[in-house]
């Protein structure tokens, strides 16, 4: 399974999403970040770090890898196009902010030229002042609904999954453990992060659904 996590706007949550998948599932990790955090954190034999202008090699089908892609797709960003071309799924994280939404839509339009297997993850979700979520479901939050409306307006039937704002996305780098691994080791983490862990399980469910259809 090859997954590209890509959005032209930075700070959308690409690296935390990519890293959590790698830590949970033992995937390899490809990155074009010039100053990545993975040295010594991800085993060398599973880490492929390139410059933006380099191409990722075409990897065989039995390699599972997540590409964590920085920058914007252009004729010169061979790293992004070479990753997206071979990806079974492109995950585009986006948060509820005007510039971020604009960039995400541009990203989806670019990526759609290569694949229709796109998943949008609505990241950094927070409740508005006084907002109550029906059934505790973040899909009822105003932030999620705004993101979903913008993505639905593209008319491409792209699924959108919620991922609430959580300090766990800093912790996975501090402790070098995935959300579930952190929760397994600390009952307080298990309590605090159960909602975001459940949301990430929905992302895994989608990944597995795409992977099963591809077989």
């Amino acid at each position, binding site marked *: 399974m090859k997954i590209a996590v890509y959005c032209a706007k930075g700070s959308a949550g690409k690296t935390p999403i990519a890293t959590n998948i790698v830590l949970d599932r033992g995937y390899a990790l*490809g990155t074009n970040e010039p100053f990545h955090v993975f*040295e010594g954190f991800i085993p*060398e034999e*599973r880490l492929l770090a390139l410059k933006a202008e380099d191409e990722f090699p075409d*990897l065989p089908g039995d390699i599972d890898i997540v590409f964590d892609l920085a920058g914007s797709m252009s*004729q*010169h960003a061979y790293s992004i196009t070479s990753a997206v*071309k071979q990806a079974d799924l492109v995950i585009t994280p986006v948060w509820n902010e005007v510039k971020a939404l604009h960039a995400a839509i541009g990203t989806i339009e670019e990526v759609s030229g290569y694949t229709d297997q796109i998943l949008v993850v609505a990241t950094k979700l927070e409740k508005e002042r006084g907002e109550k979520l029906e059934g505790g479901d973040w899909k009822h939050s105003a932030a999620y609904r705004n993101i979903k409306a913008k993505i639905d307006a593209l008319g491409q039937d792209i699924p959108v999954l919620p991922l609430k704002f959580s300090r766990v996305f800093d912790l996975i780098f501090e402790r070098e453990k995935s959300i579930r691994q952190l929760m397994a080791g600390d009952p307080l983490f298990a309590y605090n992060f159960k909602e975001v862990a459940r949301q990430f399980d929905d992302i895994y469910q989608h990944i597995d659904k795409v992977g099963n259809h591809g077989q």
Partner: protein
Amino acid sequence: MVSKNNDITSFKSGGDKAILQEKGRGGRPAKPVAEKRNYKVVLSLTPAEGKTLREKAGLVKDATYLYAALKEAGVFD
């Protein structure tokens, strides 16, 4: 759930990009300067042209296909 090795060592070309890069790692010798293809061309296409190109390129990368076509047409002679 770690069920595979996912060892990609054999797919690395020149070494990982990190802030501090180890020197003298050996490996394949560098190409002569005259053989290095580092003059890059930007080519903008319409969506329809892009689609046609991708169909014709097939399993080969677009740039590889175009380069081969240009050579065959004698552009570099």
